[in-house]
């Protein structure tokens, strides 16, 4: 090894060490934030506070590298959906919901194939003040505004909560699907009817989106925006 190679290796090793050190520090910074996200999946504020404190205490007691804490935080985040689901009284099997979602995707895909190449207006979504006025009142009345094609989400939302799906198309077409809860005591059968109603609404919505030419990536991005908005509304209430 000549002098040039030696110095190049030394500098490369130093850079790698610095980058690794930074990564480890980022891991230490990230782990509590991941725990925060994980605990936010619990259904009640009390459970959210409990799990946040519990998991942070557990991480604090872990010996080893900061990256180990990060890895543990990630595993807790991954499983937090199941933990939260275990505390939900109004829930259905995740496996069943996934199957339904798969079925819905099949419908959507068929719609996409059927409408491929057609000249149709692109949909635009009303959010952050862009909600059409005639829809706004209706949407504000709904504690859960769901713009999700995810049957999983819709059928796990408690059946006594109204759900709205809103779409505005740039060509001027507008529609909102508002699935209201049934009044009074809910039998198991009634709950399932509501869920099926929501699934149909979602399937229709999903198919409509694809029919109007929205790309799947855009849909996903819109759903994330909607999800954040839902969380915002929940926290704001």
């Amino acid at each position, binding site marked *: 090894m000549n002098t040039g190679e030696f110095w190049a290796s030394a500098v490369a090793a130093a850079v790698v060490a610095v980058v690794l050190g930074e990564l480890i520090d980022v891991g230490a910074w990230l782990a509590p934030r991941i725990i925060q996200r994980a605990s936010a999946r619990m259904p009640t504020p009390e459970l959210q506070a*409990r*799990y946040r404190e*519990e998991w*942070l205490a557990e991480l*604090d007691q872990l010996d080893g590298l900061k990256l180990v804490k990060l890895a543990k935080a990630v*595993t807790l985040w991954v*499983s937090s959906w*199941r933990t939260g689901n*275990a505390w939900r009284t109004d829930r259905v099997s995740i496996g069943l919901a996934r199957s339904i979602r798969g079925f819905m995707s099949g419908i959507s895909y068929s719609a996409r194939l059927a409408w491929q190449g057609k000249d149709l207006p692109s949909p635009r979504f009303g959010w952050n003040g862009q909600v059409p006025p005639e829809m706004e009142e209706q949407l504000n009345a709904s504690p859960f505004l769901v713009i999700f094609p995810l049957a999983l989400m819709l059928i796990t939302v408690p059946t006594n909560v109204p759900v709205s799906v809103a779409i505005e198309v740039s060509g001027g077409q507008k529609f909102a699907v508002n699935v209201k809860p049934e009044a009074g005591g809910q039998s198991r059968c009634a709950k399932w009817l509501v869920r099926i109603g929501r699934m149909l609404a979602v399937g229709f919505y999903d198919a409509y989106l694809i029919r109007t030419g929205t790309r799947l990536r855009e849909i996903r991005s819109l759903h994330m925006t909607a999800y954040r908005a839902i969380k915002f509304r929940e926290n704001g209430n």
Partner: protein
Amino acid sequence: MSSPPRMTLATMAVLRVLLDDPTAHRYGFDLARDAGIATGSLYPILARLEQAGWVDSYWEDQQPGHEGRPRRRYYVLTESGAVVAREALSDALRRTTPRTLRTIPGIT
């Protein structure tokens, strides 16, 4: 209290650890380590067991020697939970063990 939890292998492992000493109070990562399961699998199981009333959880009282350490949440089997869990575990073991291995003559 909700319906009894599903007896998966991981649930059985957690119950077995808890039943080893039903009066012992254990925290999450400690339980996961002894049960030999991932921490990610542990908390959904504990939540289901707690929902079913088999397990109780509480915050530790901070001892003077533990100052500076965040308080832990401990898990312990309830009295009724210990009885039901023992039955459920033996039932599950009976179901998952091949009949030919259940009784081996000469071995107790």
